[in-house]
């Protein structure tokens, strides 16, 4: 039975009791508790169930490596699953539920999996996927779905606030234990900018729990002094509750600060994501204790020796009244001493080493505690809690030599340095035979922009596991980091601690060494995912020799702790099974984040309206006020149509088309790209950019142009106007403005840098309004100011002047086949012009029209649209645009590419029009089928529909399509299947792409 002890608990404040609830039960804890420590203090050892077998579980650790004690935390819009009880600070009103159980933590139906364990071996999923389809669908999937999954997914939108923060530091120290603080103190004396971050809410790491003396002070006092000193230093920033999630190229570091997890609703952002650029990073990230693999090592009450000590010393929560300690190294003896001092009974220390001689062991023996040498646990008794252990010889197969009754077991399999941050960006590891651990290889660090290593490890993270060693290493690390950044460290000496006399560890990966299959099937490696020694050995037998493959086959290390607790145990077991050394097996890849971070912190402020900036045309507000149905086009919103009254969108589009063709329509074309190209070599340059000749365009005229990539494919189109002898204005598609401007700059800067040309993207400097329809001229004449007669401004010309007192440039160009003017005015006066046009147009039946009417009208005319008729594989020749490709020019972008045989192949799919026989509208994206089927049994295809609309002008469905040898097949009928069982295919006739006013009479009046 676990309980709270008087006189213990350095981190809790007994003057501040807190009420919280667990599985609907109200409980009491103290300020400073974690949820796990408070539950243990309340006698609640069992805190969750495992993922696969739903086995009862208690916390095995006291920190970030905890795999078992996961809870659903909070409610409603502040609900979050899979939160580690061990790193969840208690606060007043906290609400938590345990996971992976139904109907209750105590009684779980899913535990039936436990009995089925032998049917759920390693690779179960992989093997099941190979099973007949029916078995998967009817047997496995329903059974797995019933019991699988960790916590519940939140249903409500997150009510909290999150933010990003950008920061630059010369030296960032990750870890606020004694090694990190020593490193920070050394680096700080150089005057460089230093950030120190600690993932826990308190400084000092393990030292205050583990004891010893630093510069003749107890660690707690020393830590207090150093933190005070660092707080006073102007060049040092200290942050607690901040975890270094990942190290990336060139010193980029992500910090995850849990600002207000422990003070909900206090108005601060809940999490803050720090995007840090660090000159040097010191990782003083400590080490994590490893469990031992013995049968029943997952029973609630079995935990890491260090965790049992932490719960006692930090939070006054004693796990167990009568404890057995099992170890292969000296460190666990500290737990025996602490529990003994706290008045708990330590029944025995089982040490796998045949002879035990260390100083700590001597102190334990002097305290009257039995130390059994060469001994191991054969088996833990108990299901929901420990009732005792069977003791055996480590060297044997598991025959019990003694039974010991106990209610808790402290285990230690040695320590693994936290090497994650070192490894994220390519730092390499070495296997340290003497200490049985992987540690960073200082000669192979991750390298930065200067080619030098930019991560330095400090303390236990380097493999310096003693207090004295960690302090010396931390000091060196801080000095090295500052020196590399050009700092001069004035502090000469590292803090001092007494050297410890320690006996070396005995590597123990399976306990006992000769255990048989029955015991191995109860030895847990990955606790959360229920991966046992037997699973890893099975994977090895089935040929999984790579550690990365074994990981995925068994799910070892794929739980939310990502193998922090016992990946080393797993790969050691794999190495044994494969008969090779541990370094030959190697580790799996360490990937960020170090511990899970909230999705919301990644999003930061980029949610809701701030998710993406919205580009608004100068006339946006009018559209909004007049009921525009919006269509996103790049970052713009453009009116799709303006429905009136009870109109459907389709009805509104038809009305807008009919009105424009009969009277006059207004189109906000401001989003069109407008790039000015100017200079003595501008004509020559544009002749390279466009497939046709632009240098010969007379001033005052407009010409439609095509742009291809160097690979020959059509990338953009638009009308070019020559403004002056040395100046052209290039219109691009709405989505293409920035891209095409960048494309021009690329060629100008990187290929023809000696050509005298300037470009400027003036897209947002001008509002542009299309006045379109037979009455367009009458409306503009009503505004007054310019002669826009056919004689003064013929088709494909432009003129400058004033309209309604607004300076304007008027282009006579048409994308609809109607008499059409596009009027560009300074952006700030676009709305004024629009309003005047609406007023003046009233007498002529003016209506605004949106992008869909624009599309319908251009399709009726057979005009192509970039992105509809093109998809990055289409060349102008496919679209019948040979007339816009110069044959005279020696060179232009894409010319050489278009000479390749495949580009000139007559077998290409080419653009034609389609007229459905029954007048219906072909679905978007439909294919034109050919005879026969392909090797997958699918119908062969001979073309695809690129644009398809209902044409109100013609009263029928029209389409354009790319069809195999299309233009040679006029009049032929083709078949277009429609999705949906039993639906008859649509039949259509191949016709020319222009459906309306073929001679172009309407636009040239």
């Amino acid at each position, binding site marked *: 039975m676990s309980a709270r002890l008087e006189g213990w608990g350095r981190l809790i404040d007994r003057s501040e009791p807190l009420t919280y609830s667990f599985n609907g039960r109200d409980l009491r804890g103290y300020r400073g508790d974690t949820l796990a420590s408070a539950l243990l203090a309340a006698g609640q050892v069992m805190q969750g169930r495992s993922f696969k077998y739903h086995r009862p579980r208690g916390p095995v650790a006291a920190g970030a490596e905890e795999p078992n004690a996961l809870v659903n935390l909070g409610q409603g819009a502040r609900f979050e699953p899979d939160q580690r009880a061990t790193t969840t600070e208690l606060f007043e009103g906290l609400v938590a539920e345990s996971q992976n159980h139904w109907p209750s933590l105590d009684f779980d139906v899913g535990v039936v999996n436990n009995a089925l364990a032998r049917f759920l071996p390693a690779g179960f999923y992989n093997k099941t996927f190979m099973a007949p389809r029916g078995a998967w669908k009817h047997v496995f999937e329903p059974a797995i779905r019933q019991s699988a999954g960790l916590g519940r997914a939140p249903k409500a939108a997150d009510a909290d606030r999150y933010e990003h923060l950008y920061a630059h530091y010369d030296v960032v120290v990750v870890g606020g234990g004694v090694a990190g603080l020593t490193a920070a103190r050394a680096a700080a004396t150089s005057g460089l900018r230093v950030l120190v971050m600690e993932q826990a809410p308190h400084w000092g790491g393990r030292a205050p729990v583990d004891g010893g003396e630093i510069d003749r002070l107890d660690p707690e006092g020393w830590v207090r002094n150093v933190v005070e000193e660092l707080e006073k230093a102007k060049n040092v920033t200290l942050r607690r509750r901040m975890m270094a999630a990942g190290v*990336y*190229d*060139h*010193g*980029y570091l992500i910090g995850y600060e849990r600002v207000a997890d422990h003070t909900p609703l206090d108005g601060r952002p809940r999490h803050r994501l720090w995007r840090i*650029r660090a000159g040097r990073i010191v990782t003083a990230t400590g080490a994590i204790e490893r469990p031992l693999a013995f049968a029943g090592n997952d029973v609630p009450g079995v935990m890491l020796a260090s965790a049992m000590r932490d719960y006692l010393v930090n939070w006054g929560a004693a796990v167990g009244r009568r404890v057995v300690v099992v170890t292969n190294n000296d460190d666990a003896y500290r737990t025996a001493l602490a529990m003994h001092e706290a008045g708990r009974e330590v029944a025995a220390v089982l040490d796998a080493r045949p002879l035990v001689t260390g100083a700590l062991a001597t102190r334990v023996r002097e305290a009257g505690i039995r130390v059994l040498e060469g001994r191991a646990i054969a088996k833990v008794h108990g299901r929901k809690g420990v009732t005792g252990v069977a003791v055996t010889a480590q060297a044997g197969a598991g025959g019990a030599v003694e039974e010991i009754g106990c209610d808790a077991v402290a285990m230690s399999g040695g320590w693994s340095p936290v090497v994650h941050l070192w490894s994220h960006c390519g730092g390499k590891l070495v296997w340290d035979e003497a200490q049985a651990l992987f540690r960073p290889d200082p000669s192979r660090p991750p*390298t*930065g*922009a*200067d*080619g030098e290593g930019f991560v330095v490890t400090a303390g236990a993270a380097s493999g310096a596991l003693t207090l004295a060693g960690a302090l010396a290493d931390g000091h060196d690390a801080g000095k090295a980091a500052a020196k590399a950044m050009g700092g001069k460290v004035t502090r000469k000496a590292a803090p001092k601690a007494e050297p410890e006399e320690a006996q070396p560890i005995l590597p123990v990966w399976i306990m006992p060494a000769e255990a048989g299959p029955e015991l191995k099937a109860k030895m847990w490696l990955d606790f959360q995912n229920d991966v046992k020694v037997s699973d890893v050995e099975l994977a090895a037998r089935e040929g999984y020799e790579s550690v990365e493959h074994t990981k995925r086959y068994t799910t070892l290390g794929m739980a939310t702790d990502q193998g922090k607790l016992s990946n080393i145990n797993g790969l050691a077991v794999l190495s044994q099974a494969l008969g090779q050394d541990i370094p030959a097996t190697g580790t799996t890849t360490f990937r960020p984040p170090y511990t899970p971070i909230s999705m919301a912190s990644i999003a930061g402020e980029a949610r809701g309206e701030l998710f993406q900036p919205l580009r608004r045309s100068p006339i946006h507000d009018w559209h909004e006020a007049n009921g525009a149905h919006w269509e996103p086009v790049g970052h713009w919103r453009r009116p799709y149509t303006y429905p009136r009254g009870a109109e459907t969108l389709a009805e509104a589009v038809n009305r807008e088309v009919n009105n424009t063709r009969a009277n006059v329509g207004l189109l906000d074309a401001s989003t069109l790209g407008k790039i000015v190209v100017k200079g003595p070599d501008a004509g020559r340059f544009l002749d390279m950019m466009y497939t046709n000749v632009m240098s010969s365009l007379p001033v005052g005229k407009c010409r439609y142009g095509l742009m291809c990539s*160097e*690979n020959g494919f059509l990338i953009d189109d638009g009308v070019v106007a020559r403004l002056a002898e040395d100046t052209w204005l290039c219109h691009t598609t709405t989505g293409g403005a920035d891209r095409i401007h*960048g494309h021009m*700059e*690329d060629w100008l*800067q*990187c*290929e023809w*840098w000696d050509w005298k040309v300037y470009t400027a993207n003036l897209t947002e400097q001008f509002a542009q309004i299309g006045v379109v329809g037979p009455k367009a001229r009458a409306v503009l004449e009503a505004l007054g100011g310019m002669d826009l007669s056919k004689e003064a401004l013929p088709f494909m010309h432009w003129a400058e002047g004033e309209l309604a007192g607004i300076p304007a440039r008027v282009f006579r160009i048409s994308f609809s086949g109607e008499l059409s003017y596009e009027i560009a005015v300074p952006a700030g006066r676009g709305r004024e012009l629009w309003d005047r046009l609406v007023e003046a147009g009233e007498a002529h039946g003016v209506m605004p029209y949106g992008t869909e009417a624009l599309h319908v009208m251009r399709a009726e005319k057979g005009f192509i649209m970039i992105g509809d008729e093109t998809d990055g594989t289409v060349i102008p020749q496919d679209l019948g645009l040979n007339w816009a490709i110069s044959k005279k020019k*020696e*060179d232009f972008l894409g*010319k*050489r*590419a278009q*000479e*390749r045989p495949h580009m000139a192949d007559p077998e290409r799919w080419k653009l034609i029009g389609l007229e459905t026989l029954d007048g219906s509208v072909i679905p978007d994206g439909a294919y034109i089928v050919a005879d026969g089927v392909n090797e997958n049994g699918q119908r062969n295809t001979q073309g695809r529909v690129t644009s398809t609309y209902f044409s109100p002008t013609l009263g029928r469905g029209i389409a354009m399509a790319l069809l195999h040898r299309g233009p040679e097949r006029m009049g032929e009928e083709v078949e277009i299947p429609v999705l949906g069982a039993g639906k008859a295919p649509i039949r259509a006739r191949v016709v020319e792409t222009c459906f309306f006013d073929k001679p172009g009479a309407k636009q040239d009046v």
Partner: protein
Amino acid sequence: MLTLECPYCGIKADETELAPGGEAHLKRQGPGASDEEFEGYMFARANPKGVHFERWRHAMGCGKWFLAARDTVTLEVYGTYPAQTAAPPKALMEKIEKRQSDRGGK
């Protein structure tokens, strides 16, 4: 996430400010080029384990294209230089050679 110094505006730009443009110093092949020459220009790209000359644009900054010599293994940036050149500057090539011989000697 790389940092590269823009040789035009002198800013140490974060990768988020930059747009990559692939291999530098390609010789353009236009009409008249053989199929092999055109294929090499259009598609064949160096993929070295080591020094790579590459194009970057300070897209969210001054808008200029520049070139960088970067080691694809160590991520060391030997230098950046303006794009208006057909070959890397001599001083940069000497620096690269020296860095590599230093490393080889280590």
